[in-house]
């Protein structure tokens, strides 16, 4: 039976929407079968164990059902999704060697420019494969590895094998299993003990092909007392068919290490974004998430931090903006597994024009985690009466002497505030945008300047959508 579909009229998303002619070198058949997976695996020249892993994941995928909570996913028809799209480009360390249309895409997104001014390394993925990767020489000398997952799988097979989908096992949920079966691309970062990567690394994932899926895998290992800031960017142009993103991010933050993982996801309105991110943090280690969720038709994204070592810390700062036809279900979860672990979750959700934004926070304190500290602060802003924002906290506290705080506010922009700003000579739209920018400021200020600017642009793009 043909599935009834609702395609969302997209707003003008300017540069993000410029699509290239599909010049892919190879596309797998749509759908999900053992043959397709064997074919992908062979083309990617996987080691034998990886093929087995993929096939096992497919089995798990077939056994699991869709989540029985959260947004409706019935519009997603896997039979119509092309899971592997190989761009007609070889991975290179020189932008000159990247095909022109692909290079132009990343130019518009400002990647090569940022690489020159504010990044220590860049990975750029186009559809299913990484087409460009670079890292500064002095980091290489210090033993830092930053490369695409395929290269890592061959050159650092043991490390990958020890970590790949160990934190997010395929059994975790249906889309983790899907990821295990069809993953392609993504970045691998290894920071050796005591090395501080002072300037951020960034991977950008661009999905160009219509009706395709992107399943990049990001694996980051920060060894003892080392530190890293990793930035992830994602976008796709709009199409009239459903696209799927089911990436997976696994972060290993060892004792005394510090990792900041910043993301701005900016998908078009035909995207189902079902993404999984998880970090495990050792003694005295720190994971900091900065997460901006924009765009997509449906999102389910709940980065999880497992505080495994004593005194491990998690800082989570997130913003989610849902507009017309969007159901963005995001959140954060923290599992306290050791004494004196602490977490701070601070989120802002905005909804407008009938959009639905849900923020779920889940805090679990195991009985091995006395003196856990966790504070959750969720603020929602609804820009009109037809939009919805919800915050859904859950807490499960077994450890003694836990100090858990939760604060949630849901608000609207008052006319008074708008009138006030208009009386300073700006238009009503500018006033509204200034208030929203102020609302998301706690997140913007956690981002490097260029990304804060990008986020403010996205806020403005989303806000302008109302006017038409």
């Amino acid at each position, binding site marked *: 039976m043909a599935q009834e579909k609702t395609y969302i009229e997209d707003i003008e998303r300017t540069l993000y929407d410029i699509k290239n002619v599909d010049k892919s070198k190879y596309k797998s058949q749509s759908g999900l079968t053992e043959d397709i997976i064997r074919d992908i695996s062979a083309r990617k020249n996987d080691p034998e164990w990886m093929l087995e892993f993929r096939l096992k994941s497919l089995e798990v995928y077939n056994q699991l059902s869709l989540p029985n909570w959260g947004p409706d996913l019935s519009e997603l028809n896997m039979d119509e999704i092309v899971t592997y799209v190989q761009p007609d480009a070889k991975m290179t360390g020189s932008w000159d060697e990247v095909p022109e249309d692909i290079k132009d895409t990343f130019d518009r997104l400002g990647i090569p420019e940022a690489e020159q001014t504010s990044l220590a390394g860049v990975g750029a993925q186009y559809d299913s494969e990484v087409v460009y990767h670079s890292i500064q020489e002095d980091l290489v000398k210090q033993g830092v590895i930053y490369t695409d997952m395929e290269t890592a799988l061959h050159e650092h097979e043991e490390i990958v094998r020890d970590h790949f989908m160990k934190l997010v096992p395929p059994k975790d949920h249906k889309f983790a299993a899907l990821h295990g079966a069809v993953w392609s691309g993504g970045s691998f970062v290894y920071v050796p003990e005591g090395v501080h990567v002072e300037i951020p690394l960034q991977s950008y994932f661009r999905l160009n092909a219509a009706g395709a899926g992107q399943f990049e895998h990001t694996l980051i290992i920060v060894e003892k007392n080392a530190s890293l800031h990793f930035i992830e960017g994602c976008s796709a142009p709009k199409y009239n068919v459903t696209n799927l993103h089911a990436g997976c991010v696994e972060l290993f933050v060892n004792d005394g290490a510090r990792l900041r993982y910043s993301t701005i996801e900016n998908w078009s309105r035909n995207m189902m974004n079902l993404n999984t991110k998880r970090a495990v943090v050792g003694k005295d280690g720190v994971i900091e998430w900065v997460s901006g969720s924009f765009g997509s038709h449906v999102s389910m994204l709940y980065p999880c931090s497992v505080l495994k070592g004593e005194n491990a810390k998690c800082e989570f700062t997130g913003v989610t903006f849902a507009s017309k036809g969007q159901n963005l279900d995001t959140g954060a979860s923290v599992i306290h597994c050791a004494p004196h672990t602490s977490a701070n979750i601070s989120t802002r959700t905005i909804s407008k024009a009938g959009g639905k934004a849900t923020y779920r926070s889940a805090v679990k304190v195991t009985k091995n985690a006395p003196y856990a500290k966790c504070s959750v602060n969720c603020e929602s802003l609804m820009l009109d009466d037809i939009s919805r924002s919800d915050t859904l906290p859950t807490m499960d506290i077994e450890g003694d002497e836990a100090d858990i705080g939760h604060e949630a506010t849901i608000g609207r922009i*008052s006319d*008074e*505030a708008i*009138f*006030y*700003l*208009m*009386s*300073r*000579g*700006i*238009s*009503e739209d500018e006033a509204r945008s*200034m*208030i929203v*920018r*102020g*609302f*998301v*400021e*706690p997140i913007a200020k956690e981002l490097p300047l260029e990304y804060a600017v990008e986020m403010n642009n996205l806020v403005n793009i989303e806000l302008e959508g109302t006017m038409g």
Partner: protein
Amino acid sequence: MLELKDLTYQVEENNETLTIIDHLDLTIDDGKFIVITGPNGGGKSTLAKLIMGVKELTSGQMIFDGEDITECSITDRARKGISFAFQQPVHFKGIKVLDLLRLATGKNISVNTACEYLSKVGLCAKEYIDREVNSSLSGGELKRIEIATVLARGTKFSIFDEPEAGIDIWSFQNLIQVFENIRKTVKGTVLIISHQERILNIADEIIVIENGKVKKHGPKDEILPELLGTADAVNRACSKMS
């Protein structure tokens, strides 16, 4: 010149029509320093908001420098040169004092320039410039910042709604100074809503609003003695009662 012709502002409450501003006529000449006073609830703030366009007239007409602004938005009025310091300024999360001052001037003014405006209202500028305009600021601080932003706008017609409210006695002294300076230096019209004799004292003209109407309007020297006379009489009556 601002001409208010037959202004009426009504609100519906519990199926009743309340007339807050009642067929009010008023002409405010250019370059004057005018203080509006009158009993609580008389309609002063409402009148100021009608001039700024924050509230919509029920009927009547407003002419500003010969141009009919009755239908103009708040933004347009602001751009034509009307400013309003709110009696109760609004809180904003994530917006800094510096942002508000930049917004007010419409320019990307330097921190130093912004600090000068804050110093004018007696705030130690460096401490405030990066503060968010949220509930962490005290009422008095908020009021002073509000006054600073209107000073920063420097428009030809500025309205201050009870600028002295919530400001301590010591700073009040300075505030009077601020307004005296405005009086001397600013060429535009300044309209202050106030209950304070000290402020009434520096006015060119005083307007008394009561029950939504102009009860009195004239030069300070004429109106102030009348007002003080009434106050004296009330005081005397009260002291007799006790």
